[in-house]
């Protein structure tokens, strides 16, 4: 066996793989296993590196923590609202972009800008739009006033107002990538299909539902799955909008909860963080599996 290993130059293959294996092992595989182990070690002390015993107490604690439940609720609301909304709007915009000729490039760049803009910069822009300061109530409130409404405190006010800002922000941030993918998907549909449909007198609505939509459905499906995963991972956006004390604002997300458990002001509990991380993993895995099951039935060519 050993002889063959050298004879076949197998060691060269391993040599080439070494950098990748090393990095993946140290930064991905080892932490993954470690998180799993941490999540079952009860009363782990990171300073002393000791623990009382092994069991499921960490999970029980996390699942009974009102902050965690709030974070789960926030994350689910965010996911359920933003994923379909952003995909739908992106599809509409892509269809529009695909059907105009003049200024197409300009509009494409405009719609793509948020993708390359710094998260914190976007956060600042949203501050100007929504935040109450000593001088103004924010641009959106100005508009509301203009139409005769009462101003709303979006950043520190009622829960639905904050959730509204977060959803608008998320939709706006994830849209450019979706538009990019969908416009290229639309452009790659062979023009002959449309010509064939035209010769047969197909109405534009039927062309859209019977030809365009099925043709780009693999891409839409891809966007929905990555959209779900991305939304479940939401954290930096929330920080950009509501600062780091998310639990107090009632706007924490699952990833935010994990981070707080590790390094936040109330942090220093890697076991709880690990348990929460494993729970997040289980939720994302379940939802992706459901997506795949539905997708396999719908997209079959």
């Amino acid at each position, binding site marked *: 066996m050993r002889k063959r290993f050298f004879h076949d130059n197998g060691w060269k293959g391993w040599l080439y793989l070494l950098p990748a294996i090393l990095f993946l092992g140290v930064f991905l595989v080892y932490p993954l296993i470690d998180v799993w182990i941490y999540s079952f070690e009860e009363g782990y002390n990171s300073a002393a590196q000791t623990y009382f015993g092994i069991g499921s107490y960490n999970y029980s604690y996390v699942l009974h923590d009102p902050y965690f439940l709030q974070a789960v609720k926030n994350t689910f609301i965010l996911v359920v609202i933003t994923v379909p909304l952003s995909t739908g709007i992106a599809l509409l915009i892509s269809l529009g972009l695909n059907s105009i000729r003049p200024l197409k490039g300009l509009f494409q760049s405009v719609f793509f800008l948020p993708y390359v803009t710094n998260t914190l910069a976007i956060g600042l822009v949203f501050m100007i739009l929504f935040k109450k300061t000593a001088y103004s109530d924010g641009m959106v409130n100005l508009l509301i006033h203009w139409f005769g409404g009462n101003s709303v405190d979006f950043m520190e006010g009622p829960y639905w107002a904050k959730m509204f800002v977060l959803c608008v922000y998320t939709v706006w941030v994830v849209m450019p990538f979706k538009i990019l993918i969908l416009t290229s998907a639309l452009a790659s549909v062979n023009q*002959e299909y449309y*010509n*064939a449909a035209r010769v047969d007198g197909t109405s534009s609505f039927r062309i859209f539902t019977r030809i365009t939509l099925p043709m780009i459905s693999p891409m839409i499906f891809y966007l929905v799955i990555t959209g779900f995963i991305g939304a479940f991972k939401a954290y930096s956006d929330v920080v950009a909008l509501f600062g780091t004390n998310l639990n107090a604002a009632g706007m924490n997300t699952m990833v935010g909860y994990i981070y707080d458990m590790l390094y936040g002001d109330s942090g220093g509990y890697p076991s709880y963080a690990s348990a929460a991380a494993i729970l997040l993993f289980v939720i994302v895995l379940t939802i992706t599996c459901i997506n795949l099951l539905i997708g396999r039935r719908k997209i079959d*060519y």
Partner: protein
Amino acid sequence: MKVVLQNLTKVFPGRGRRAKKAVTAVGDFSYEIPDGKLIGLLGPSGCGKSTTLHLISGLQKPTSGRIFFGEEDVTDLPPEKRGIGLVFQNYALYPHLTVEQNILFPLQNFKGKDKLPKARMLEKAEEASRLVQIEDLMDRRPGELSGGQQQRVAIARALVKMPKVLLLDEPLSNLDARLRLQTREEIRRIQRETGITTIFVTHDQEEAMSISDQIVVMKEGNVQQTGKPQEVYDDPVNLFVARFLGTPPINVFVGHVQGSRLYIGADAVLGVAGVPDGEVYVGVRPEGFVPCKDGSLTCDLKGVEVMGRDTSLVLANEVSLNPVVRAIIGGDEPVDEKVQTVRFELKSGKVFLFDRETEKRLYFEGSRP
């Protein structure tokens, strides 16, 4: 339904950055396609044959000229109002629909009083599928079919609403050689059975010659010659048509005429009364050579290819424009492969003279079949 094209012209605006030169894809095309015939539009790539087809289908609008289906002027009608069936080069079958759904697709578009009950639609689809012999494949998807089967589905989809005119864009170019032979017979049969006026586009002269009632030879947007395939082959109007039709291609020599005699090189090969003196192009069909001991044309023998019933002589001649001269003679004539040169007499009906400048045909006594 006869189709009449009147001075049909399509000019594409130039898009070149330096020279905005407009491109005439189809120039002043007038032709009447008789009812119930199979017409082949033939020409090299970029000659405007596909554009002509698109103009007839209505997918493109002509710059000028009119199109009539029967007595009706359809020039300004959109494609769906013209009652045409169009088969695309790559078939354009919807990959996510089954064969049956693909064939049903055009019928499901009918609205208002034209709307058919579901049972009637299925019946029509069934009928169309029987015509092209794919009734066993109705539940498959296009991806699961061979090229030839896809082609049939595409034809069935075009035929299902019983179009007045059937248009085929390079229908055989995506098939392998054997299937091509089979499918072109199939197209012929379907056309005969349905009696629908059919126009198809091809760059393969053999394909066009073998199944068309009439062919239209095009070059750079202009019609060169129209007529029955054999007539065009036997009586080409210019050098381009003569060279384009026929495999192996026609042999072209630079010759000259002096005192009503045609010279190829130094050999006086034929009496050509009625042609003025001067340099000419001489086209000789491969079957126009008759080996003969004291023949007038001398060529160097390079090789002999025996292909079944025919023997093809590969020859060389100093004034030939083609790299080799090919002569096809009957397979039973003995050929001595060791000889250096072969002498031929030429059949006057297989020899065409063309002007050196205009490349137009020059007729001499006995030059017409």
